[in-house]
């Protein structure tokens, strides 16, 4: 078995207790994958508790990655390799595995206590239920402790190295160079010599064990073919990293400081953490006392001339709602990032969902529209962030940028953009002071094309004016309760958001033909699985096309026309049909919704099944009747 299997792609899943270091192990394996030029997509899947009770199924923390040569856009439906650190991890992961998958279990953890905690009455390795898989039992805990014994660590400290021991084993199976991880460990633990040396030793020991132990007979090796990616310089990136870099890039393109005001909330906090380290890039971070203070401080910063940004997840966004209305009325730029999670209420903090679309588009008191855009992949968060800032400054409006828990934490290889290729971001210049005119009116002299007013900030000579939440006169900017004026201002605010459509690209198809039987419409993080599903279907000559929305509100001007050329429209979304409602509302479309709210991303297989079920049994192509169903 030691000859290498050559593969186009392989899905690896690591699972263990929250404290087993699975996420770290996964991200290091991903980095080593990147360095050998493979495409990949990852999906960290962890519980809400920091250290959930060990050994339980609800405490399982997992990291799944899909490594391959052809474009990889999802973390993979069915793991081909599972590393299970305990029975609970095996139990939770088993239903996901593809048949014939390789399962590496930590033999030491398969004791009566852990089996019972996982809800197993008997060891599943002895009941036959794993017969369709290839199971390799390794004494990971024991071998690791032996390896690091020389460092005099306590048993609990010593066992914390076992993720690196197991990583060493995995690295051998995938024929990876240990050097980058060795270097990383030495850097990470540079202030703790014992931890540094123990982890390095564990890594090398796991690798050596795989290479030399008799057991190696049973350990297969894999060779994943190199990816066919566009030429250029790449790095691995998570959605949260890309978003923070995108916001920072937008500030540079606008030549303004970025002030990021936030309150910690899962899964939005990584953005706060990344930006907090970017002070050399003209970024100021303010951790506010609550969600409301965070958005209000961002509004204050925008008022002062910075690009004010606030970030949260659904429940926190709800708290910010009133302040969004203030930014609308004061006509100030602002970016609100929502890393969506499962809900309602506290819901599923660490699981992903797309169920805040109604909240983003419709969820404010009064007629209070704001532009809403969504990022589709980890790397795309960079461009989505720039676009959000561009719209906010052009139209002097708050903009909602939707991402989700999956995108925040998932990573992928990313072609590093050249900043020179990105268009600078313009803001609306303040007028020249003019003593013969009322400053108040000058502050609200809007560009008729964008409804954006000049960005006048305190400190500017001779332009003092008053802003506020009260309705103001369209022309003079003074408080007005005039009925006709309120209608006019409400119309203006609607027109402002509508006018965004004049500046955005026309909607394109990702895959398919301009007209036909079925159009699949996606938005946000469902891009990966939908793309793969439609691609597979098209390879089998099915009449299905795909388009993916960045601009949720307003929709691109040609979107209705584009969608109207298909007999059926399918919208898979991780909610109960919110984009479908929007498309009915805005364009009168009658889409079929494919909802999924399990807290997990779509599987490609689920989507292809759904698409199959919608296609008519026969189809006329050039006068010939052909089957449009998969052969049963």
């Amino acid at each position, binding site marked *: 078995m030691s000859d290498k299997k050559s593969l186009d792609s392989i899905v690896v899943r690591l699972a263990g207790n929250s404290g087993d270091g699975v996420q770290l192990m996964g991200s290091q394996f991903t980095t080593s994958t990147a360095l050998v030029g493979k495409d990949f997509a990852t999906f960290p899947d962890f519980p809400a508790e920091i250290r959930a009770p060990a050994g339980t199924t609800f405490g399982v923390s997992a990291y799944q990655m899909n490594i391959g040569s052809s474009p990889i856009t999802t973390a993979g439906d069915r793991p081909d390799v599972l590393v299970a650190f305990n029975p609970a991890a095996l139990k939770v992961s088993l239903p996901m595995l593809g048949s014939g998958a390789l399962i590496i279990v930590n033999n030491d953890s398969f004791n009566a206590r852990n089996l019972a905690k996982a809800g197993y009455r008997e060891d599943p390795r002895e009941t036959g239920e794993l017969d369709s898989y290839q199971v390799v039992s390794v004494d990971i805990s024991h071998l690791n402790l032996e390896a690091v014994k020389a460092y005099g660590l306590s048993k609990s400290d010593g066992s914390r190295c076992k993720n690196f021991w197991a990583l060493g084993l995995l690295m051998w199976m995938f024929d990876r160079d240990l050097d980058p991880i060795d270097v990383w460990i030495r850097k990470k633990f540079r202030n703790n010599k014992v931890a540094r040396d123990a982890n390095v030793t564990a890594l090398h020991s796991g690798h050596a064990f795989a290479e030399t132990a008799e057991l190696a007979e049973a350990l297969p090796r894999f060779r994943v073919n190199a990816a066919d990616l566009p030429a250029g310089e*790449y790095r691995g990136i998570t959605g949260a990293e890309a978003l923070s870099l995108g916001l920072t890039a937008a500030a540079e393109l606008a030549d303004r400081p970025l002030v990021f005001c936030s309150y910690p909330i899962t899964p939005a906090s990584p953005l706060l953490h990344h930006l907090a380290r970017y002070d050399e890039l003209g970024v100021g971070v303010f951790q506010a006392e609550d969600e409301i203070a965070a958005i209000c401080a*961002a509004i*204050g910063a925008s008022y002062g001339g910075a690009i004010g940004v606030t970030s949260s997840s659904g429940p926190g966004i709800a708290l910010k709602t009133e302040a969004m209305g203030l930014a609308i009325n004061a006509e100030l730029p602002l970016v609100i990032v929502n890393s969506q999670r499962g809900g309602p209420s506290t819901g599923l903090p660490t699981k992903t969902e797309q169920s805040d679309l109604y909240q983003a588009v419709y969820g404010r008191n009064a007629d209070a529209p704001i532009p809403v855009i969504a990022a589709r992949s980890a790397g795309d968060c960079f461009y989505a962030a720039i676009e959000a800032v561009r719209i906010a400054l052009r139209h002097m409006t708050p903009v909602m940028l939707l991402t989700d828990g999956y995108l925040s934490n998932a990573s992928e290889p990313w072609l590093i953009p050249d900043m020179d290729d990105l268009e600078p971001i313009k803001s609306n210049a303040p007028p020249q002071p003019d003593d013969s005119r009322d400053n108040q009116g000058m502050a609200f002299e809007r560009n008729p094309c964008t409804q954006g007013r000049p960005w006048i900030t*305190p400190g500017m000579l001779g332009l003092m004016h008053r802003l506020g939440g009260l309705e103001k006169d369209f022309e003079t900017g003074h408080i007005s309760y005039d009925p006709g004026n309120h209608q006019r201002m409400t119309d203006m605010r609607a027109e402002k958001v509508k006018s965004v459509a004049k500046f955005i690209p026309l909607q394109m198809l990702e895959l398919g033909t301009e007209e036909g039987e079925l159009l699949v419409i996606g938005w946000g993080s469902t891009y990966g699985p939908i793309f793969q599903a439609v691609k597979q279907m098209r390879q089998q000559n099915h009449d299905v096309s795909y388009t993916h929305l960045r601009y949720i509100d307003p929709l691109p001007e040609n979107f209705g026309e584009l969608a109207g050329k298909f007999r059926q429209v399918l919208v898979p979304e991780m909610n109960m049909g919110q984009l479908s409602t929007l498309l009915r509302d805005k364009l009168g479309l009658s889409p079929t919704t494919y909802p999924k709210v399990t807290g997990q991303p779509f599987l490609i297989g689920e989507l292809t099944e759904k698409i199959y079920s919608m296609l008519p049994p026969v189809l006329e192509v050039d006068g010939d009747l052909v089957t449009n169903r998969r052969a049963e």
Partner: protein
Amino acid sequence: MSSALTAKDFTNAQEVRWCPGCGDYAILKTVTRTLAEIGARPETTAFVSGIGCASRFPYYLDTYGFHTIHGRAPAVATGLKLINPNLDVWVVTGDGDGLSIGGNHLLHALRRNVGIKIMLFNNEVYGLTKGQYSPTSRAGTRSPSTPGGSIDSPLSAGQLALGAGARFFARAIDTDKIGLGYVLKQAHGFEGVTMIEIFQNCIVYNDNVFADFTDRDNAADNQLKLQQGEPMLFGADNEKGIRFNPDNFTLEVIDALSNPDQVLRHDADNRVLAQLLVELEKPVALGVIYKNPGESFEKSWHQSPGQRLKRTRSVSEMLHNSDTWVVS
């Protein structure tokens, strides 16, 4: 450009819309006069307010002004002050706006020592919503929402400020031009956050609620006007004084003429004394009760950990600052 300005330069043409006889008129007048006196410039002065009668204040000033949402003015003002520390940022709030719905923001602005100047107009009532009791209303206050009298204990703005770690707390009466003007000037020259509680008379819903110490006839015997380093004397002929009673840890009134040595001298940087002074009910302590300068939040924020808001590296550099690989 720095020609001398007058109160008029800070006033705009807007018709002021408070009730006739409202204490806010007097405060507005003292504020504009004081701004001129301290050499403030309209273009570098911003007034940020929340919601309530007091919060209409910015509309009547020819400075930058932002009438925000209920209770959130300290948060908006914090964002503004962070991005531009050179501005004079004043916050206008009331007892409902600042101590009830916005209590959290006030508390954190105070503890952070953000260099914003907070004026809290306390009239012990909700004026704009027509007379409900407020968090500073005394127990037993009859109002539309408490027809049988309120049952909850009032909040002390001074105790809240000191408890939150405020480094400047002062009090003044709306119509007291000299006393209010003095504390405004003191606040303006202070680096960090300042909170000024202004006893403001709501002529419609809570008239004369402070009359027991603000009326001309009661003033001398019921107001303790604090001056740094000076003995704490009051009464028509300064015949009364304040002494510390070590037996019960309180301040008490004594005959100052016969016990001059026992009269305390005001020491505004003594936090314990400040706590005793804000508790004093008769007489009511006025003036700068506590003043203990420390580095402002915005100053620390801009210095730490690096040069915030100053771009010293390019995004391009940061984009490549990772493990990278080349696909050819």
